């Protein structure tokens, strides 16, 4: 049940945070509805046809996690990104159990938030089971598990291949370090070191060195983006 591909519901009670969320999402081309408490969020969530919703963990009237739970009970499957200032370890588990799809701890970089909304929006769209991914002159054969750049086969370790595939699926979109750790390693914490950068750095050397143009770009303060020029 893919909704209007660009319509996002934001449930957030803090006016300034809400304004920032709306700004960022609108700048990324989304249409945004704001609900300032849990009750309004639940009403809009049930009535509207949203592609993604962002839910603050603690909003007035009805708790954010409870809103998601009730929406799920009523058959609303809109992917939800939980935004919370609460601790990550146990709270994340509780939020995700209630039916949340992703979790972001405040304070967060707005680009990271947009990157995660993008990822959820793509997920709620029609899933195309491609067997071949193409970004510029990079070709990834998902069946044969082979990646080629300008027709040259690139030697990748299994996890490197998985990471490159994830970047390619989200080509043109920013993918944060936290998202990579979550998707590729199934780890749910923010890395305190630059280890992901170093890891991606090695893949970048394999993909980009000696090529006409770079494909993997580092987005300062957020993460990475795989995109072809032009």
């Amino acid at each position, binding site marked *: 049940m893919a909704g209007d591909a660009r319509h996002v519901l934001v449930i957030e009670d803090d006016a300034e945070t809400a304004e920032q969320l709306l700004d960022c999402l609108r700048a990324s081309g989304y249409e945004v509805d704001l609900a300032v408490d849990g009750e309004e969020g639940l009403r809009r969530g049930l009535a509207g046809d949203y592609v993604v919703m962002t839910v603050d963990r603690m909003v007035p009237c009805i708790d954010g996690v409870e809103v998601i739970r009730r929406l799920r009970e009523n058959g609303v499957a809109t992917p939800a990104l939980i935004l919370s200032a609460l601790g990550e370890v*146990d709270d994340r588990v509780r939020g995700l159990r209630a039916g949340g799809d992703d979790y972001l701890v405040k*304070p967060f970089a707005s680009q990271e938030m947009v990157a995660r909304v993008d990822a959820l929006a793509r997920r709620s769209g029609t899933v195309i089971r491609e067997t071949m991914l193409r970004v510029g002159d990079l070709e990834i054969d998902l069946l044969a598990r082979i990646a080629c750049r300008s027709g040259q086969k690139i030697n990748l370790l299994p996890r490197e291949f998985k990471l490159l595939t994830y970047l390619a699926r989200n080509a043109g979109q920013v993918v944060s370090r936290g998202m990579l750790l979550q998707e590729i*390693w199934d*780890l*749910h914490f923010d890395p*305190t*070191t630059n280890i992901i950068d170093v890891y991606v*750095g*090695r893949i970048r050397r394999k993909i980009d060195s000696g090529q006409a143009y770079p494909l993997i770009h580092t987005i300062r303060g957020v993460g990475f983006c795989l995109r072809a020029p032009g």
Partner: protein
Amino acid sequence: MLGFASVLLGKTLRSSTLKLAFIYVIVFSSAIFAVLGYVYWATVDFVSKNFDRSISVEWALLIKAYGSVGQTGLTTLINRRVADPFFDEWAYLLTDPSFNPVAGNLKSWPTTLHGDQGWGKFSPLDWQSNSTKQPSFRASYQILADGDHLLVGRRLDGLDRFGQKITIGLAWAAGLFLVLAAAAGISTSRRSVARIEAINATSREIIETGLRERIPLRGTGDEWDGLAENLNSMLDRIEELVESNRQVSNNVAHDLRTPLTRMRGRLERAYSREFDISQYHALIGETLIELDEILRTFSSLLRITQIEMRHRTAGFRNLDLTEIAREVLELFEPAAEENGVTLELSAGDRVDVVGDRDLLFDAISNLVDNAIKHGGRNGRVVVAVSQDSDGAVLCVADRGPGIPIDERKHVLGRFYRLERSRNSPGNGLGLSLVAAVANLHGAHIDMKDNSPGLRIELEFPIAERAASGIPVQEARANAGTPNQAPP
């Protein structure tokens, strides 16, 4: 001292132990009185039965004589008995059918004895005695074959005296018991009150002056000492935590203030001067990076606190430590390469631990990260996973400068950094996180000399199956699914 004593007495009287002691005294004295009462009754009964039996035996003897030799023989026997000083407690009287005395030491038939036969009690007025007290007798009497009456009696004074002695003895015993029980009750409760008062005094002292005070031990090794010891070690632990909290606050203040001051200065400069747009851009970019650094430190700190406060085993499952170590090593391989460090895994088969994969991964990452950073250029870092009889052991060894022995216990504290690494990147929280994770998993951290270098060992307890009972296969299967909520 007197004041203290009266306070103590007041407390003793109010104390719950004393009330308890009194209840015990009442219950036990009821039991004791019942037992003593029974003893009294049984003894007196036994003695008086014996008394009656002796009268019956004497009676039988006289009747036998009467049967064989008739009245004259009986008279002779009675006269012999009366003359015998051994029988001076006995009364005899043989009368003719109209109660005229024939033989015996009584002048007349006692008026209290009616009928032809039976048992009775009487006090003769004319008894020859050196005591002024009027004697009383218990007697058996009967009409004989030819109409004569015979009475055989025995003085009751002995029996009465015996009964009195028993009564007095039992009364003394009961009294003594009550006094002893009350004394024991008061002394026990006073002892308890004194120990409780010592604990209370220490508590008040702590409330007023701080955590330095400790409850005095008496060295008796009893449960009071046990309680005091436990309370003292609880106080030690609290003091330790408060101290580490204080340390952390100081360090947070220091480690966060410095970058915050820099940021403030930068913003102030931007606010007061005219910059062109590119300068503003650069300034904001730098500030954001620094701000992110602070936020990261902050969330690391929160994360450690959260891990420390988490319930042990909440959300734990069965994991393969070897597998986690292998994944960490794979993640760090490029970083090791970049630093010219050789990263090796020394592990055999699956090694079971029960735990949280995220946390273990993070902890091992921190150890490997440290080893690569501090292990020296062109160094060699070995991660070993093994299983021995005491449980799983994970060991990360480098060939760097190591940690001086006297600093080893400090490096697990938050923000603690060795002098030589003050200027290298890092926030001094890595090993604190490792310590918190190890603690949550019941693992012991051991720091050894790798000569040269440092060898950190995490010794896990024997793996029991996770309480939640999630099968390992299922846990593995979940690991690959994107956006999967951790079960």
